[in-house]
């Protein structure tokens, strides 16, 4: 058992727990913050995404001892922050969610990228969001959201569908 202190959604919190307790369990079971989801528990699906000191991280891979003194932000806080509104709107309007189970994690990734001082262009954003799996949408709506949120690639046409059969 260890005693840890960290900031959770801006509030200082303390907890006594085994050193190897996963942040995902701490959030879901100890604090009742269930927006971060267990999809794989091995860092492969992104459904458990949180921000650790403002950078996206998989809560399933973070042990209690690693978060002592750090700041954790969860989807519960981010989804109430107007700064994430464009991302949420783009997903809702583009059809970027179906069952919605991947959505909190997806928003955590996209909102982080969108709020960077120098956001990536759309192809880079797709690449950076590719650690967030979605099994429902075929990523169609997620691509539409990304196209709306991020600049098209340098020198590329803005139209999503390239000329057909073009071997180039």
């Amino acid at each position, binding site marked *: 058992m260890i005693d840890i202190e960290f900031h959770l959604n801006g509030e200082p919190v303390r907890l006594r727990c085994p050193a190897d307790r996963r942040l995902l369990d701490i959030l879901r079971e100890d604090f009742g913050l269930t927006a971060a989801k267990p999809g794989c528990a091995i860092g492969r699906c992104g459904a458990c995404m949180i921000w650790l000191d403002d950078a996206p991280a998989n809560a399933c891979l973070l042990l209690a001892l690693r978060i002592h003194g750090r700041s954790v932000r969860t989807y519960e806080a981010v989804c109430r922050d107007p700064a994430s509104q464009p991302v949420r709107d783009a997903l809702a309007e583009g059809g970027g969610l179906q069952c919605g189970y991947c959505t909190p994690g997806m928003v955590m990734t996209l909102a982080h990228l969108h709020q960077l001082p120098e956001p990536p262009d759309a192809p880079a954003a797709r690449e950076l969001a590719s650690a967030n799996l979605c*099994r*429902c949408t075929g990523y169609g709506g997620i691509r539409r959201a990304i196209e709306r949120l991020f600049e098209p690639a340098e020198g590329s046409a803005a139209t999503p569908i390239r000329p057909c059969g073009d071997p180039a």
Partner: protein
Amino acid sequence: MKDARPPLSHAQLVARMRPRPDAAERLAGAPYLTDRQHPEQLFGAILGSPHPHARILSLDLSAARALPGVHCVIAADDVPGCKAFGLRHVDRPVFCAERVRCIGDPIAAVAAETPEQARAALAAIRVEYQPLPLIDDPQAALAPDAIALHGDSNLLHRETHRHGNLAAAIAASQHIVEGEFLTPRQMPTYLETEGGIAEPDGQGGLTLYFGAQNPIGQRQTLAAILALPEERVRVVNGPLGGSYGGKDELTIQPIAALLALHSGRPVRLRLSREESVDLGVKRHPMRIRMKSGCDAGGRLLFRQVEILADTGAYATHGPEILDAAVEHASGPYRYQALSIEARLAYTNNGIAGAFRGFGAVQVQFALERQMDELAALAGLAPDEFRARNLSDLNDRGPLGQVVAPFDGPRLALEQIRQHPLWQGPRRWQDGRWLHGVGMALVQRSDGFSKAGPNGAGLEVALAADGCIEVRTSFTEMGQNLLDVIRILGARHLGCDEARIRPRIGDSASGVDSGPSAASRCTTVLNQLLQRLAPAWRARLQALVGDDGLEPGADGLLDLQGQLRLDYAELAATLEADQLPVERCAFAGEVTPSDNPIAHFVFGACAAVAHVRVDRWTGQVQVLRLSNAGALGPVVSPLGYLGQLEGGLLMGQGMATLEELPMREGRYLARNLDGYFVPTLLDAPQIEVIAIEEVPEGDEIGPRGVGEIGVNIGAPAVANAIAEALQMPVRQLPVSAERVLDHLERQP
């Protein structure tokens, strides 16, 4: 009337989309059933078999029961009612008592105060096993001396269809192709693994909150297992994080319910990804021998198909899936002779069951591959060869049954033939990349076969606040059911969409709409609401005693269209028990032909795919996937587009990536580090075109779009890969390894 609207382009569909009704709630982080907590909760855990096939010699629960924090430890003896379940074959034990038949087969379960205590209790359960000979191959399973997993044979089901003189058609064929096709054990991979909470109601009954697709059906089975009257059991099926068919059948709900009843406490039970891989259902791997021939003019003469499918340890939907394979093995084409023979074997290879694409996608891969192979032999382009062999609008269905007249395959094929991607080059090389463009055409059935369960009920009620409740047991799984109910409710009942309040996914409504499966919800809801509308109107008119009034957006309107009485005002004049409720039942779209496995309604898609294959790494990359669906009028553009986009990528996954390997009855991958599903980087530019045209006199309206994306995606991508590599693609997925093997064998 023939509805000959021009097709909707992808851009038009996108422009017509609007956010899902539940988007705001989901985006606010609203909990799923696996997120539910209860102050009194216990944690459940299941002891699964470490052997894929073994006899249980002894089971000792006493040490586990004595551990701190443990409230109950239960096994087969603690099941008060039916000890097994299953849809038509009741062969799956809640707990195995004498024998385990697959890895992870449940033997016992515990409920304890913490997950750690529950795990410690599992470790203290003592079981003695005697391993039995392993049956890990469906062919070996059917050998006469094979040990039977159930009854006296491993042949769970057999189905055949024949017509015409096969020998004569073979003799008359100028070109013949023949091959064996293998399809993978694909996993649904819903991001939310199976789980939820079972909550006792304090009066001997309980509520089960577990994501699934059929609350009323599950309530019935659970009540039988628990030996409770059905009214004592409530089943809530949503919201859930994906299902794709995989959560249609019960898995761990009986165990959760028993733990809750034995402990008297709410019990949360949730499978880890590893446990979900073990216990969840997968797509049936099939071995398909197919032989087809055509005459010198490229007219198909025959198709001969032998299917051997691996159902694993328990039946679940296996027999219906095999039937679907038989019905879809010939496609939307005409033949002089057909011979289809299919067998389904029990093995110790996990459990195969319902999964989007349902038995059809496997044979459609083989069929559409052979259409290309035969076209090449006949010297015809793939599209021309298909066009020459299409069934006619008024032809019988694939099993010779009467079907709803439908021209979808021709319409879809015409769209794709004209598509610029198909009109362009089909094969070229660009440095290390080999490019290929391929196409496919499929039709697939809607709803259940004649054997059912086709019936569906619906209830419409005026609520005290003036909303109109539409009550169905269908479940929202992401398909946008909620908006479909609002759109169709408003269309048929005359009120504003905002007035419609859907009530779904809960057995407490008492309304039995049957399973949210087989791509049927939209079609069935449309029929139900259409049938219910006149009675609803008459009921409202009778309530106000004026049959000159018509239901309108916000209330009853007079002949001039003026609002005379708001729905809320009407409700306010009535006592709670006088509020109008109308029920409707619909027997379903059923073929009049006397064939229990035959369907009445079909939809169709044609698609063109552009892939490039890296000659250095063997990696297949799908660049574009354009689909034309002939699926009747679009109800919800967002749902239509989303279902097809999602289905197409899942079909692509089956063709390029997804395979859950087993060795000796054990999974070689148990998480997403060994089983890969497509990521954002694998997703191609998907285009969806909606052909809304239906034949004159059509009474079906919208066809299902839930599954057909998978059905068309896999063969279209497979054909594009075959074109790029000039490779006889016979096995899915076309992994990098298989590509490199092929390239190495090239001169």
